[in-house]
Every structure is written in structure tokens, then in C-alpha cells.
């Protein structure tokens, strides 16, 4: 029974190769709101299972989780399609929950760690929906010069991407800081791996972003998002920052 619950947890807090299930599903779903629901809901069963069984996590599972997270983080470096990238990042970030738990993060805080990444990823998925509505694709190979063509959408994408890759004041930053703080003494090698993983996310995120933003605009004119919608999304980012500050108080 214990083994079965671990396998189910490994599906929802994805360990390789179980993470392929989520990515295959996420890529098939084209509706933005379904994607958001998936991003918000997927890790929760895994967290609940871990909370209810309060398992002792063997060290090989921790190394496996780090391998899974690094594999998806590394693979995300060359991804040019936003949907695929969001799936890979989600897989990479959720796997860290195993490490957090093994390092001594409290069980009731695990859900905060999961949401710290799911929330900005969901916002990114919504913005990618805006992009797809305009260009019928979110593939950076066919869209370029977005900063020139759609400055408001670009600005929001930039800020959300920063939130996803764990930039300061956003919840993911404090979640990462907490995971590293807990693991550095208990599992120093793992902590080093988590630090490298953070670097991989930055590399892949900025690489993807600059392919989209840089250069002359593609010669198709699309209307940028309105001022009001920009303010709404902007407000969501402010809420994320407030959430980050709250998280810093709870976790650190």
C-alpha cells in the first residue's frame, strides 16, 4: 500500500519517467483555463499523499527527485514552444517537493512550496493564451520582435517569466531559499544540485524570452492588450509579490 501511494505521489510530484504523463496531458490540452486548472491542481494530490502518509523518504528517492528536476530543467533550455516549456518547468519545480520534505520542511508548508511555482506558471499559461490568440502559436521560431510589436504583452510576459524562474520578491524565490536553507546542512550535495537547477531555469527562461522579444517585429500587425487588461494582469503580479512577502514570513 505504501509503495502504491508513493507511485501515485511520484506521478503528481513528478519523478522521471512518471513526469511524462503530465507533460503528455498538458500538451494535449489546448484550452487555457483547463491548463491553468491542471497547473494548480496537479501537485496537490501528491502533497496530500505525502502529508497523510508522513513517510520517511529514502535518500535514493531524493537523488531521483533531483535527477528528475534537473533533467526537465536541462531539457527546457532548448525548448522554443511556451506550452512545452511550462510543462517542463512545472515538472522540474514540483519534483523539488520531495527534496524539501526530506530536508525537514514542515508538512503543512509543502502545499505553499507547490503553489509558489504553480501560481506564476498559471499566470504565464494565461498570457501564453493571449499570445496564441494573436499569432495562432506560441513558438518562438515564428514570432520575434514582440517587444516592439506588443510592448504591454511583452512587459507582462517578462515579469511573469521572472516570477516563474524564482526572481526576488516572488514566491518561488522564497520557496527556493527555504529549500536550500533546509537542505544545505542535511543534504549538502543535493543543495548544490538545487542551486544549479535554479541556474538552469534562469538560462532556459531568459533564452526563451529573448528569442521572442528581440529583433524586428514580424510583419503582421496585431493589437496589443488593452490598458485595462494590462492593469489586471499587473495587479496579479503585485498579488504574487505580496504572496512572496507573506511566504517569506511563514517560511524563513
Amino acid at each position, binding site marked *: 500500500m505504501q509503495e502504491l501511494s508513493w507511485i501515485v505521489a511520484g506521478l503528481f510530484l513528478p519523478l522521471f519517467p512518471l513526469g511524462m504523463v503530465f507533460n503528455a496531458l498538458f500538451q494535449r490540452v489546448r484550452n487555457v483555463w483547463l491548463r491553468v486548472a491542471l497547473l494548480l491542481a496537479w501537485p496537490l494530490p501528491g502533497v496530500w499523499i505525502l502529508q497523510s502518509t508522513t513517510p520517511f523518504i529514502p535518500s535514493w528517492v531524493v537523488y531521483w527527485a533531483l535527477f528528475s528536476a534537473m533533467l526537465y530543467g536541462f*531539457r527546457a*533550455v532548448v525548448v522554443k514552444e511556451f506550452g512545452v516549456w511550462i510543462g517542463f518547468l512545472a515538472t522540474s519545480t514540483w519534483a523539488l517537493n520531495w527534496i524539501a520534505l526530506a530536508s525537514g520542511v514542515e508538512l503543512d508548508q509543502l502545499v505553499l512550496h507547490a503553489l509558489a511555482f504553480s501560481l506564476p506558471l498559471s499566470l504565464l499559461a494565461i498570457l501564453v493564451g493571449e499570445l496564441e490568440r494573436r499569432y495562432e502559436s506560441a513558438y518562438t521560431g515564428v514570432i520575434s520582435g514582440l*517587444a516592439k510589436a506588443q510592448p504591454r504583452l511583452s512587459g507582462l510576459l517578462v515579469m511573469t517569466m521572472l516570477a516563474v524562474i524564482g526572481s526576488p520578491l516572488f514566491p518561488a524565490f522564497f520557496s527556493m531559499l527555504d529549500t*536550500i*536553507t533546509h537542505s544545505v546542512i542535511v543534504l549538502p550535495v543535493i543543495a548544490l544540485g538545487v542551486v544549479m537547477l*535554479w541556474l538552469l531555469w534562469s*538560462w532556459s527562461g531568459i533564452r526563451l524570452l529573448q528569442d521572442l*522579444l528581440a529583433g524586428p517585429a514580424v510583419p503582421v500587425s496585431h493589437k496589443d492588450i488593452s490598458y485595462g487588461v494590462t492593469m489586471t494582469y499587473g495587479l496579479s503580479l503585485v498579488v504574487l509579490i505580496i504572496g512572496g512577502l507573506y511566504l517569506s*514570513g511563514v517560511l524563513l
Partner: protein
Amino acid sequence: MPCASLRNKGESCEENNRIMQQLILLVITLPFISAVLTQLFSDRLGRRSASVSIVTAWLTFLFAALCLWSALSSPEVYEYSLFSHWGVIRFDSLSTLMSVVIAAISLIVHLYSVRYMIEEPGYARFFALLSAMTGTLLLMVAAGDLITLLIAWHLVGILLYFLLCFDTRSRPAFRYAFWTWITYRIGDLPLLLAAVLLYHAFDSWSLSVIFERLAAAPDTLTIFQLPLAEVVGSLVAVAAFARSAQFLLHTWLPYSMSGPTPVSALMHAGIVNAGGFLINRFAPVFVETSSVLPWVFAVGLATAVFGSVLMLTQNDVKKALGYSTMGQMGFMIMECGVGAFSLAIYHLIAHGLFKGTLFLGAGGVIGEARKNYNVPKDPLYNFVVEKNPARGRKPWLLMAAMTLLVPIVILAFAHWLVAQDFYQKQGAIVLLFFGWVTGAQLIFATYRMRTDKPRRLISQVIVSFAVVVVGYILISHAFDLFLYPDEEFRARIYAAATINVIWFDALVVLITAVIVAGWLRTYYNERNGQCKDKVISPLWLGFYTLISREFYVNDFYVLFTRRLEALATRLNIWLRWV
């Protein structure tokens, strides 16, 4: 009566504390407010939105100057906490001094940009980013806890990325901004590890608490039973290396010129100096180390040498300036490595001012050169550009003796003015040595210069050198007293940088012998007209290839990155992109 006096004194101190807290908060928050307002009102105000940024830059500078004035009159440390665990703003001599420098450079860059950027699209965005960068830098130098420091340290990299790729149409700007970004991120990570190790050891994020507890227990051990101070010192040093473009982490600096000129000025005058600041901030950690500072010195030395060699061989002026900054940063880190921490702060300020002037003046020089192609020829032009040495020779033995002796006499005198026992400190000897090499090189260059009045020229050079050296040493001594008023602490920093005496003496003798032999040979060749080699040897050609490819460091990184990307692509294909 004494009680009343004490109470009055206490109240006045509290009042002073409160005013200082408000001033510091204003210094840090004003630029952020300006950034938000400039961006928010950009549609309504158009290009006039820059004036919001300019006014706040002025106010920030004035308040920062007030803080410094207050720090000069009372060298107390104040702290103000925004949140329960972090968000501590520290008011001490280092933070106030650095705040004034940052606010001054930022103000100049702001004023310069008003006209320089006027035709650029995204004018308001530029000023918003500039103000945000100023605020972040101010937050970084005033951070009183590790989390605030980490946040500011990280944000500087992010904002610099967006300033460097301000021209969104330019793909090279994005490419080289990415190099900067990734190097900065690499530098963030050791600082992060250092922070969490300190937190674990002392159960606090506050710098004051950590430094106090470390002083009480300097032999604290950390992971793998390693000495905490050594591990944290090494990690902080690596973070400083990435930020200050030390060798192997330098490639972003010479290529980051694709950004607007004011950004280059701000970067070279301010941001890149953060490494020197960081080492100074963690001085209480470095005094507890024994093996970190010598290798900090070695890295600084390597950077100074490689940076200078690459600067001399560039045919692109902007890249030459970039490598010049790299060489200067190497020198700054080297100063930290010999224990002259406050000298590094003085160096970064002096370098910031002259490099900022060079960048901001570059546009005017180029404009002038476009109007007038005929550069007036004078002895200096002949010497520097056409490299024509003097026809008439001065007595070489006399000149050789002057080259070697005059700088050392001036330097020894200047050091003696501020500390009679300077020769007992290895760090002071090393600095003396480099001062001597620089001075000797200056006189050597004069020897080769064509002039009608050689005696006058040489005496002018010697007087200038003496003024510079005495001024430099006196000012750096004043910095020493301001930043590290505790004499025992200063001595401990020098002690932490000390290496085995036999090794030290052997190295000094060896390097002196090599340099003196090189000078004597050059003098001798000059005198006998053998300065031009007729045949280029394969060794020389190989060396030329090496430096023309910038020691293949960039090539290696590009190749390595491509291999990694190819591997990631291969993995994705195998795993069907899921």
C-alpha cells in the same frame, strides 16, 4: 544634573537615530518611487516624464550626502528593520560612502541621458529602469541582513540585463546582455550558499548578529567539518569575482557595449565595482580566514595582467575600454587580497569617476573626430600614436638608475608619512611594489619620448608622480580611518592576507629580478638600436594568435554551451518532447 544631562543626551541620540532612519529610507525608496511614477505617467507626460526621474536623482544625491555628513560627524551604526526577519537597512560608514558614490554617478548619468536618449523609443522606460537600478544599488549597499543583500544582489543582474538590451531590435544587444545575465546568476549562487551556511551556523539573517557571533566563535565548523569562515569567505570571494569580471568570469564585460552609452558608464563606473564592496561588507568574515585572501590576490593579479594585455591588443576602442575596466577590477580585487580593503573602496571610487568620464565623453570625441579628420600632431601624438621614439638619447645608465630609484623613494616616503611600520605588512609591501613598477614604467616611457627639453619633462613627470602617490596614500589612509576606525581590526585584515614569509620574499625577489632584467634589456636595446625584430618568431606569432583570440576563453564557453544545447535537444528527441 548628570542624570538630566544623560537623559538629554539619550533623547538627542534617539532623535538623531530617528532622523537618520528616515533619511536612509528616503535615499533608498525615492528611486523606486521615481521608477514607478516615470513608467506610470509615461503616456501622459511623454518625454517630460524624465524630469520626475531627474528631480528624484537630485534629491537622492542630496539625502545621501546628508547621511554621509552625519556618518562623518558620528561613526555609529544604525539599523532599521522593515520586516521581522529581514528587510534591515544598515547605516554605517561603508553604506553611506557607497550611497553617495552611487547617487552621484547615477545623477550624472541621469543628466547626461536626458539629451543623449531623446530620440530613442522607450525613453520613459529607460529612465524607469535607471531609477530602479539606482534604488537597487542603494539597497544593496545598505542591506543589513543576508536576505535583503541577496535580493538586491540578484535584482542588480536582472535590471542590468534589461538596461543592456534596451534596444529591443538589436539581437547582439540581447546576446551579450544574456552573457552578463548568466555570469551574474553564476555569481549569485555562491553568495546564496554563503548566506544559508551563515544562517545555519548563527541562527540569524542579520549581518550585525552574524558578525558578532562569528567573532565570538571564529572556529565554528560547517558542512563536511570545514571551517565556516574559510568556506564562507571563499564563496563570497567567488560571488565578488563574477560581479567584478575576474579572469574566467570576465567575458561578459568587454562585449556588453551594445547597450546605450549611459548604461556602459553606469556599469563601468558603478555596478562592476560591487565585488570590492562585497568583500568589504564581509570584512569581519575575512579577518577570521587564513587562506582565502592570498588566492583572492592571485585571481586579482591574473585578471589585472590578462585584462591589461588584452586591452593593449584591441583595435576596437570600446572593447579596449572594457578590458581596461577588467584590468582595473583585477587591481581592486588584488588590493583586497593584500588586506588593503579600504584602498579597494578608494580605488573603485576613483576608477568609477574616471571611467564614467571616459564613457560619457566618448560620444563628444567621436563627434569631434567626424567633423575634423586631421588630428593635430604634437610630441605626445607622435609618441603615443605613431610610436616614434626620441632621436637624442639621454645617458641610459643614469635613466635606468632614476627609473628604479625615484619611484621607490617617493613611495617609501609617502607610506612613511601615514605609518612608520608599513614595511612590516606584506600587503603594504606588495602595493609599494606595484606602485614602484608603475612609476618606473612611467619614467621609462618618458625616456623614450621625443622632446626639446628632456630635463623639464622628466622633472614634471616626477613631480606629478609624487603628487599622485602622496595624494593617493593620504586619501586612502583617510578612508582607512573612516571605514575601519579600529586599528586592531585593520591589523587583523592585513594579518589575514599574510602568507609564509619565505615564500613571500622569494616571490618578491623573483618578480623584481624579472622586471628589472626586462627593463635593463629594453634600455640596452634602445641604446643600441635593436628594438625592432626583423623576423617574427613562431613563438611570438603563437602568442599573438592567443591574445587575438582573447585566450580562447569565449570560444571555449561558446563551444561548451553549444554542446550542452545539442545534448538537451538530443534528449528531447529521444524522450519525444514529453
